[in-house]
């Protein structure tokens, strides 16, 4: 198939960016979206032009490094799918595709479609862990956890940290990302002891990083590649209020 591509090009954080048009022929419907960009980059090299910079790594939907806005949707037209798992069979011959980076104040653009998501690391550093050191743990089966609780914790823990939730949100809120980690750890007995401190620190850090507030549009859930539910945001709010009320 033949495609018209309009792609965001920006030299650096400080530079002004713009949409540039490209024509691409010989796109096959079996290609992944990123393989289509590989093809374009190969053509740009042949023409002596700088390639389009984009982030990607595992290309199997689990590392969370890829992520671009495609026709205005985070990760493209399919719901709950990473950019790397999107295939060109979702498009048709003659389509025009608009390709932009994820945009949020907390995710500065590095070059073209590459963004900096360090803010997510900072949120985890604020408390997204259980304070255990190597060598301390008791025998694994001495901590019993019900099947259903484990499964629910897993559903939240499955977050890949891609940032699609932030890019989709009109407020650039990181509530889905942050709440997923809070739920994962709050549901497990190992994580309960520090749950109050964790939720306060992580929510505060989320604000410090410049993410906006959640206004419950639930747009994030639609784009989340791991289908993380917005119910976790409610749990985060519950945990946060509980922590404030029972503050020692």
């Amino acid at each position, binding site marked *: 198939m033949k495609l018209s591509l309009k792609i965001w090009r920006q030299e650096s954080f400080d530079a002004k960016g713009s949409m540039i048009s490209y024509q691409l022929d010989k796109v*096959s419907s*079996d290609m*992944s979206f*990123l*393989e289509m960009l*590989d093809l374009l*980059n*190969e053509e740009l*090299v*042949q023409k*002596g*032009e*700088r*390639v389009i*910079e984009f982030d990607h*790594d*595992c*290309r*199997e*939907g*689990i*590392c969370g*490094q890829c992520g671009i806005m495609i026709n205005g949707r985070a990760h493209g037209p399919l719901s709950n*799918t990473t950019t790397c*798992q999107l*295939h060109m*069979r979702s498009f048709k011959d003659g389509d025009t595709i608009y390709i932009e980076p994820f945009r949020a104040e907390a995710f500065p653009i590095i*070059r073209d479609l590459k963004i*900096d*998501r*360090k803010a*997510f*690391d900072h949120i*985890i*550093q604020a408390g*997204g*862990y*259980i*304070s*255990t*050191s*190597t060598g*301390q*743990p*008791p*025998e*694994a*089966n001495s901590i*019993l*956890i*019900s*099947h259903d609780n484990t499964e629910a*914790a*897993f559903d939240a*823990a*499955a977050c890949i*940290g891609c940032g699609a939730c932030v890019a989709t949100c009109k407020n650039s809120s990181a509530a889905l990302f942050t709440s997923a980690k809070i739920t*994962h*750890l709050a549901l*497990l007995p190992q994580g309960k002891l520090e749950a109050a401190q964790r939720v306060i620190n992580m929510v505060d850090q989320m604000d410090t990083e410049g993410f906006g507030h959640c206004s419950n549009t639930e747009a994030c859930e639609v784009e989340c590649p791991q289908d993380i539910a917005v119910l976790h945001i409610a749990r985060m709010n519950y945990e946060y209020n509980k922590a404030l009320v029972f503050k020692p």
Partner: protein
Amino acid sequence: MKLDAKIPAGELAEKWSNYKKHAKLVNPANRKKLDIIVIGTGLAGASCAASLAEQGYHIKSFCFQDTARRAHSVAAQGGVNAAKNYKNDGDSVYRMFYDTIKGGDFRSREANVYRLAECSAALIDQAVAQGVPFAREYGGYLNNRSFGGVQVSRTFYARGQTGQQLLLGAYQALMRQESLGKVKTYTRHEMLELVVIDGKAKGIIARDLLTGQIERHAANAVVLATGGYGKVYYLSTLAMGCNSSAIWRAHKKGAFMSGVSWIQFHPTSLPQSGEHQSKLTLMSESLRNDGRIWVPKQPEDKRILKDIPEEERDYYLERRYPAFGNLSPRDIASRAAKERIDAGCGVGPMRNAVCLDFSKAIKEQGKDKIKEKYSNLFTMYEKITGINAYEQPMLISPAAHFTMGGLWVDYQLMSTIPGLFALGEANFADHGANRLGANSLLQACVDGYFIAPYTIPNYLADELKAEKITTEHVAFIDAENAVRTQLALFLKINGHLSPDYYHKTLGKLLYDKCGLSRSRESLETAIIEIKQLRESFYRDLKITGDDKVNSELEKAGRVADYLELGELMCYDALTREESCGAHFREEYQTADGEALRNDQDFCFVSAWEWKGNNLEHELHKEPLVFENVELTVRSYK
């Protein structure tokens, strides 16, 4: 140089305890004076960096990705083995040791493998404490499943995302140490040179991939936990950024490489669908618990797969290996698939695949049960291929996956350069010539959580007295200049072919000539062709863009290293005149096509020494001594 594996004295079961009893220690007050560089933030790197930081050392952690949580351990699906014997089905440390050493076709060290099994149970404790949501039974106890190459259920799992959950545990431990100021992470940094001073590893040269800045970092020890190099084949199950550059550049500074050509092809990957393809996606081996593998009995059978009647299907694994059937080890399952595909019985549009069929399991257990076990894998399959595998057989094919080879290390995981350690897939140590499923997550974790935290302090104890090195040392200046010269060269060549062109060409060449099977003839041809390809690379390479954010420039460095590594892979395969594990030399097979090992002449670890550009490597041999197991023919029939 004589290789000394430094295996501790004593009975097999006591060696690791003996080592720990006598390992040197560093006083807590002195630990913060010692700097350790850890390259890579996968399971091995993150767990090592976090564990050493908890002890009080000062850690610098590097990764090329945008955050530590992206490292490719994240993609491991199936599970992690541990000899907990929770299923009461006859498992033990010894049994796990034996399965692993047999699975590796008796080409690994007894002491290393035993230690791996011995430390496995503690890893499950560690991960559970971190909050890893392993599968549970309804009573709240941990659940297990079985995996290829063994007859017990010892695999712990978190749906089909075990690697992700274990990695997040290690990543969170690392982030905790960063918040405490014990670790400084350098994301989007690539190590481009190892700095060796007076024979010891003393630092690295790294490139900041955001600014293009070349940086010098000094340390008392350097840990390479940079994963495997299966991406050398271009098409593989690895991430696009996985590379050999850190270990290869260390190799060129004096660290030996071992088992270089021992690369596992995973039997259950999705087949290649066209020339544009950049990646072969893995479907977890756990699918083989319920899926049956078959091809049509007749070659070139073009019927719709579902319409091929039962008696015209060849369940070749069940036929050839009745004892293990669809759960035969990976090397055997992959080779058997290639044998059928080469015989013209392959299925799919490119006739390059075999069927993995769930119809019997769905009939017996119900669709819901299969869904509960594998839904994420079936969904992923449908996203990529557009096919619903509940209705039709999955199409699968072998793909380059795991490198058993890597940097030679002794029992302490230290390379031939003192102060340079290699952990996880980056070393060669535990899997012999073939790795068993669910042992890679285990090895990465055990190396990082439990071994390096003893062996690195043992080395550092003497470093306290050593002269403090600064980055002004001439060795740093030379190493930095070498990096700058190479980068400038790539930008200057201005030919007409991209790094991807060379990577794909090399990958295809290696797949055909040094892949699932090899012969003297194919390897000798490959060596000549790789040399020619390398000459072309330095003549015709084209890199556009600048020396700042430039993914093409990053690729060029990695491909340049692959073009040297690929040649060594061929020499390694050529000189090993036997078949063992994943290394199948066509000249050395039994009458019924099984691998024919030669314990008389090849019961050793090959360790290759770099002698300089365009000079042949020198082969050193570390004999493998078996005192506890008998070398048998590895039969799964």
